[in-house]
């Protein structure tokens, strides 16, 4: 059972209080994009064995979206952060590096 803290309302709850929303920081592509870009955007999900960044929603709470950094092998939640960002915050990335040296996720490390 994951324990997540909603960065919007500050409530810490079990995963049943939240809903997973898939991969974080997607780059969106629309008309005019190449087929590669559009396929990547729609279907090519990151599926790492290790550090992963996701969107979550506090459905049975404040209802707001936010981001979470999580490990798909140990199920450790490294931290959560606001939805209004295009990349994980530096302090969270440092914290993950302490625990998982050399991790990479898309262009982040």
């Amino acid at each position, binding site marked *: 059972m994951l324990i997540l803290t909603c960065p919007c309302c500050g409530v810490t709850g079990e*995963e049943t209080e939240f809903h*997973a929303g898939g991969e974080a920081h997607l780059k969106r592509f629309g008309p005019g994009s190449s087929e590669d870009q559009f396929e990547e955007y729609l279907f*090519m999900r990151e*599926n790492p*064995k290790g550090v*992963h960044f996701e969107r979550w929603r506090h459905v049975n709470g404040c209802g707001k979206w936010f981001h979470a950094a999580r490990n798909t*092998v140990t*199920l450790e939640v490294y931290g959560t952060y606001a939805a209004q960002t295009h990349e994980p915050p530096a302090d969270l990335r440092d914290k993950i590096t302490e625990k998982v040296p050399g991790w990479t996720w898309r262009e982040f490390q």
Partner: protein
Amino acid sequence: MKRYSAFAIAREAVRHHTGWDRAWRDAQPKKKYDVIIVGAGGHGLATAFYLGKNFGITNVAILEKGWLGGGNTGRNTTIIRSNYLQDPSAAIYEKSRSLYETMSQDLNYNVMFSPRGVIMLAQTQHEVRGYLRTAHANALQGVKTEFIGPQKVKELVPIINIDGPRYPVLGGLYQARGGTARHDAVAWGYARACSDMGMDVIQRCEVTGVRTEGGKIKGVDTSRGPIDCDKLGGVVAGHSGHLCDMAGFRLPIESVALQALVSEPIKPCMDVVIMANTVHGYMSQSDKGEMVIGGGTDGYNNYTQRGSFHHIEETVRALVETFPMVSRLKMLRQWGGIVDVTGDRSPILSKTPVEGMFINCGWGTGGFKAIPGSGWAMAELMAKGHAPLTDEFSMHRFREGKFIDESVAAGVAH
């Protein structure tokens, strides 16, 4: 290989069972093979088996990082059916179901295939319409199914509660020739047959790298040294994305945990397989008497082979409503497997951007029923470069928008 038979049992009985051979050799890796299959689960072993049986390719190694059939092959709820909506799915799953019928004879290994019938319950008007459509599609595809009313469901499954309260049973899609089989035996039977053809089934041999040269496959690095090959088949379910990362390309796959559980053994009470997709649960009774129960997947990517506790609760809650008598049962064991789910919930059997490397994955929550058909088709694809059954299951279908929209059938139980 000594054949298993009633005579063999009698012979061994009189000599204190000293004459049984190992079912398969504990092979050591050679330097080079014509074909390497990564993953000795059902699909990988079936692929190797049909490469040998249908195409005479026997210089084959099947590499397994753990033990044989210890992944999803040994973790599923053993349901076999082929009542799919779309033509490409019905074709490969029906091929598979028909191969199950003769599998025990083909492998000389009792896989305990039990065509006891599968009913997918319709518990909303939408499901009634959906399953009527599937039944009609199946008629055109030559897959024998029928839509049955609630009274007929009750006749077939006396322990079911068809009157609701929340989700009354309005009917069901019934495939009388579906059923179950012994999952471990499927892996063991294929492994024995492969080993008998001279193939090497190599356990505790983890692939740590995929070597390519000029876009062509060269071989793999493993925990037991490098091995060269002309063709590589990746059949590793939940770890497909991981394997393809090593080969340098990406797959439209996400890995999630799917779990199942069994109850304490009870006397025979239900001789069909019941799937209730609206309430997320499916159940059958094993030959040992345990009720085998499966439910939904976790909502987020993971590789833990456990599954969340609250999903068990949801599944069991749904089943208690549909089968009131199970409320008094104790649950014995629970386990999880990592399933590989694609964007359209249909599998991928495909060539890859690496020449000579093939991938068979994306079976998601419903791979067991497809084992022989998938192996049959994958073997043809690997041997000849194309196969009618795999044409529609290319990994490039997402780019082209040619989805096989089975998510109706596969989003939950499978």
